[in-house]
């Protein structure tokens, strides 16, 4: 980014980076009444050679991931790292406090022992896993992002209500506003719109 202090220029640059602006096209969106239709249409669109496909639905539609080629979530692996971090933190903390920094003999018990460190270790493991999972759910989805060009679609609000939306994004190599809209209609989408960024 250049060294300008003019806020309007800065905003324009940020918008440009995010692909937002009236001069840009985000993609073509169409809607469906039933989740099965969405999956069928998604598969058909993908078979036409489109690669940048997305779907929006009020609840998770099963089968859509493979139909439009969304890879499996890797969040589980990150969660395991969170669990390990929690266990290590707890063990180090209990060892440091009990044996190094504040050694006190209480009830004749050892200054550090694996057995009595189990409950706090378990709890910290769970805590770190939960926080990691929580943050990654949004982080990996690109959230929080309060504005997204797809919100310009006239039926966007029904995507969280009772309709199932299919999107072909403009950065798809095969994308052509007229042709893609035609393709969308041919797979049964209603209310097809070329959405501006």
């Amino acid at each position, binding site marked *: 980014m250049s060294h300008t202090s003019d806020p309007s220029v800065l905003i324009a640059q940020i918008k440009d980076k995010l692909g937002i602006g009236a001069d840009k096209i985000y993609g073509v969106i169409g809607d469906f009444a039933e*989740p099965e239709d969405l999956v069928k249409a998604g598969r058909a669109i993908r078979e036409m050679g489109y690669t940048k496909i*997305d*779907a*929006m*639905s*009020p*609840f*998770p*539609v099963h089968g859509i*991931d493979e139909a439009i080629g*969304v*890879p*499996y*979530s890797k*969040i*589980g692996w990150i*969660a395991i790292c969170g669990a390990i971090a929690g266990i290590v933190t707890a063990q180090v*903390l*209990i060892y440091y*406090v*009990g044996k190094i*920094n*504040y050694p*006190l003999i*209480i009830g004749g*018990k050892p200054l550090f022992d694996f057995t*009595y460190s189990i*409950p*706090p270790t*378990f*709890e*910290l493991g*769970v*805590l770190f*896993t*939960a*926080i990691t*999972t*929580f943050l*990654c*759910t*949004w982080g*990996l*989805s*690109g*959230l*929080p*992002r*309060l*504005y*997204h060009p*797809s*919100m310009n679609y006239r039926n*966007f*609000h*029904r*995507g*969280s*209500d*009772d309709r199932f939306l299919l999107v072909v994004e403009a950065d798809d190599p095969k994308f052509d506003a007229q042709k893609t809209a035609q393709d969308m209609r041919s797979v049964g989408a209603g209310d097809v719109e070329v959405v501006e960024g």
Partner: protein
Amino acid sequence: MSAVVQDPQLIEASPPLVQGSRDLHDLTDQISSVVEAKVWETPLKYWITLVCTGSIVLLLGAMLTYLVATGIGVWGNNRPVGWAWDITNFVFWIGIGHAGTLISAILFLFRQKWRTSINRSAEAMTLFAVMCAGIFPLFHTGRPWRAFYWLFPIPNTDLNIWQNFRSPLIWDVFAVSTYFTVSLLFWFTGLVPDLASLRDRATSKVRQVVFGILSLGWRGSARHWRHYEQAYLILAGISTPLVLSVHSVVSFDFATSVIPGWHTTIFPPYFVAGAIFSGFACVMTLLLIARWTLNLQNLITIKHLDNMNKIILVTGSVVGYAYCTEFFIAWYSGNIYERFTFLNRAFGPYWWAAWSMYSCNVFIPQLYWFRKMRTNLWVMFIISITTNIGMWFERFVIIATSLTRDFLPSSWGYFSPTWVDICTFIGTIGLFLTLFLLFARFLPMIAMSEVKGVASHEKHSFAGQAEGSISHR
């Protein structure tokens, strides 16, 4: 209410979980309308109830202020009962909190679809119950603003202290604070898609901004859902052992001591069963009230209530079995102190508390063996309340009977709560109800995205069945 009991759905072999509104848009409307209603559109009975419970919260504030200003001597904690009313209330509230995570996590892993209409409110109830529970240990320190250094391992230069990790009391701090945090994250994760629905429906600028920020920009993209579903599964998976660990750790506070009546290995499973028992009863009380005041009969059906009553029956019987085992082991151990404690529990000065507990927890729930009782709204409302009275008495009996009469007869005593004790407890009930009422009015009480998933699934699998049942009659 009786019209609902007579509902023809009971005759069907497997009634649908969502009635009336088969259309997804109807569902959104029905659930969101509560949140979107104008002040004067919400029934007057709601606002009157809120004012009543809100004034009880003021009582709580007054009691806690009085406690901090005067000292913890205003509570009845004294020799020989150092753990008195406040620990009873702490264990009571933590126990209530257990049903929420059980419904949202364990029933999720067991693919119990009926949980979808009740899990959101049960999770919220968990959070509020844990908040109420936290008040007691926090304020029994007398100086709650310093308690964070005593409770959590925060490096500090003025006190120069660290926690003693050999003590189950610090395990308790870890268990309860983890439980609260994880429940909060789980609850919020479930809320995000519904907050997005509310954002998309919002007509005023304020609502758009508020729900827009809270929903984090969620748009239900397939790329969101794949992470979301995976995360939900992980959170459910880790919450399951967590919920079992929390009350086990609470029971360690008792079980690792040498007091007769506490020093038993049955405590962890016995406490967990009791916690689930009381939690389900509390969910039942709140759901029946919400179902009646906000007209949610189509979403919280008799089938849901029937299933919950079955769980209450099972856990109540587990608790009854634990009582029997305790008595048997007290006799079989040959330990005279242990034997005395249990005879004293049933026939000593606190006999009235012990028999209230046996009646409310073991005898009364046996009515649920009968289907008629499990589906009668008045019966379940009354049993849900007696269960919680019984479970409160269980904690009181465990603490008071063992501490008032332990090894040395010269140090025996009798515990009576002070008026501050009683008013503080009543105050936490007010706080709990107020928070729940606010939640039920200002956030979607039923998980829309989950119910829609179930409704859409049922529409296809029940389409043929519905026709069949009509022709059958």
